[in-house]
């Protein structure tokens, strides 16, 4: 796998290169600004771009803007955003259109090497890796939104669903029977305009796509 890293802190940039190398992932370019990132993606055609949000010169949301540009110009390049903070607004912008090949994680997650490398591989393979904090923010109840019509229990179930748990996983987490979970899931799908999808993975993507669209619509 070939990766481009955009991170303005030298310490973290070099750390990330080492960390990815542990798993045999090759860093083809490590840059520190958004324009340099775009150049690198254009010339090197990597499989994945790992991107910091705040970079020079503006130190605001350069990374998010660059990620959106990459997703629209080179949809085959996966993007993984790393940030000291996660914000649902940025997540909504990233997920709108497509929930494929995208990740948005707190930088803290790099400390758990195994899980982080797993997320990198998942995103590069076309999957999604969202920080639980992002999911929590996407699921914040807004008056008038369909999410607000869910009961507290249904809200919990949806939150676990969005994190990628299967019905049996949700049942274990909430200490209820699997049929009770199935009932909640049916109620959720009745209240939210979501298509019934067979696999848990597709279901997660449907939920996230729906939530992102909700946020974008505001």
């Amino acid at each position, binding site marked *: 796998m070939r990766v481009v890293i955009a991170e303005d*802190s030298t*310490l*973290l940039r070099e*750390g*990330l290169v*080492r*960390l990815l190398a*542990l798993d045999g992932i090759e860093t083809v370019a490590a840059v520190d600004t958004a324009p340099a990132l775009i150049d690198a993606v254009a010339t090197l055609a990597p499989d994945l771009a790992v991107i910091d949000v*705040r970079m020079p010169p503006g*130190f*605001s*949301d350069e990374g998010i803007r660059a990620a959106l540009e990459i997703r629209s110009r080179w949809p085959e390049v996966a993007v993984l955003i790393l940030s*000291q*903070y*996660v*914000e*649902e*607004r*940025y997540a909504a912008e990233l997920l709108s259109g497509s929930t494929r090949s995208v990740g948005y994680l*707190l*930088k*803290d997650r*790099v*400390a*758990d*090497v*195994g899980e*982080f490398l797993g997320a990198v591989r998942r995103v590069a393979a076309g999957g999604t890796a969202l920080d639980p*904090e992002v999911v*929590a*923010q996407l*699921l*914040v*109840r*807004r*008056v*008038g939104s369909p999410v*607000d019509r869910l009961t*507290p229990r249904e*809200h919990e179930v949806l939150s676990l669903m969005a994190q990628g748990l299967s019905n049996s996983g949700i049942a274990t987490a909430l200490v209820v029977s699997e049929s009770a979970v199935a009932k909640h899931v049916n109620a959720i799908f009745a209240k939210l305009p979501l298509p019934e999808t067979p696999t848990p993975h597709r279901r997660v993507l449907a939920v996230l796509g729906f939530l992102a669209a909700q946020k974008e619509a*505001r």
Partner: protein
Amino acid sequence: MASTRHTERQWSAPASELRYRGIRPGYAVLHIATGGTIGIAAFVTLVTLVWLTLGLVPTVVGALVCGSLLLAVNSALSAVHRSRMRAFLGLHITAPSRVPSDRVLRRLRLVLTTATFWKALAYNAIVGLALFVIGVVLLAFLGAGLVCLTAPIFDTPVTLGSWGLSTQSPVTLGAVLIIGTALIVAVPPMARAVAYGDARIAIALLGRARTEELVQRVEHLAQARTGTVDAADAERRRIERDLHDGTQQRLTALAMNLGVARATLPDLTPSAQAALDQAHAEAKEALVELRGIVRGLHPAVLDDRGLDAALSGLAARSPIPVSLDVHVPQRLPRPIEAVAYFVVSEALTNVVKHSGASRAQVMARVADGRLHLRIVDDGAGGADPTTGTGLTGLRQRVASVDGELTVESPLGGPTVLEAWIPCGS
């Protein structure tokens, strides 16, 4: 501007501190002499200009030119008189604020409709003329006194009205000397009294009206406060940026390297493994704590995407379910957004800490140029808004942008915290 005023005050008193006793006779005489001299010249000039202006009304341009000249001369004379007060009486009279306008006609209209111009004109022409007359009278006193006292030398009879007082007889000579002395001795106190009266009139006619002074002061204070609020905001942003670019990155790198060490170091002794595991866990804890602190200072998303987006993060991080009802269609001024975020953040912290609530709702609306925030919980109530540093700090922060804060918390709940913050939109 503030500093110049300060230095001026070191050697001249403000209008409220004028005292008759503080006026020195010699200066009083000079004060009247200059006032009278300027006064008679000013009277002639101003009357001429007024006549010319009125007479030239049919030729619009002529009237405009003469009128403008009149305004300029009048305001220059006022300045001269004010500096005369400062030079001879040590009195500082604050000039009325200038009429701001670049267009001649508009400026003329504004000036002519304010009392400032007419009061100054009255002083410059009428009081100036009176000073001239009084000055002449005082000069006459002085002259007559001198004539009396020098009469014995020249040996001429002194005529006072219809009386002729000879200097030959000791009685009449004595009378002449007494009258002469009295005339001269009377001049200094009269001069002081006249100078005092003149100064009082000048304060009223050439100075700034009390209300105008207060208005200016309020504006000045409001400006100073806005500056302080802005500075505090900027400082919070700076600290947030410093922590983000420095400490947080270092700590992240530390946690990452500890993670790498854990994943790659083979065959550690149990105690070394335990130490490494604990260091790794501590580093991650520290990251979480630091993130909480930094986000409390000033969340970056507040600047990038506004209040609505920033509140999502607050709601998601709250341990109890928080429902949002936010309708703020446009971006608000940054200090307002920062205060609003702080209000919701503190209110939710209080709800979690003290109320025992199982859920809370946050509402934000903009109406009538004010941002209305309302945070309701379903807890036990009984919060005393007068105690607790949290609520006091909240109230102060809201007051710093002219906002109001109310807390209603009957026993048994619900607790409703509301804030209204002017946002100029």
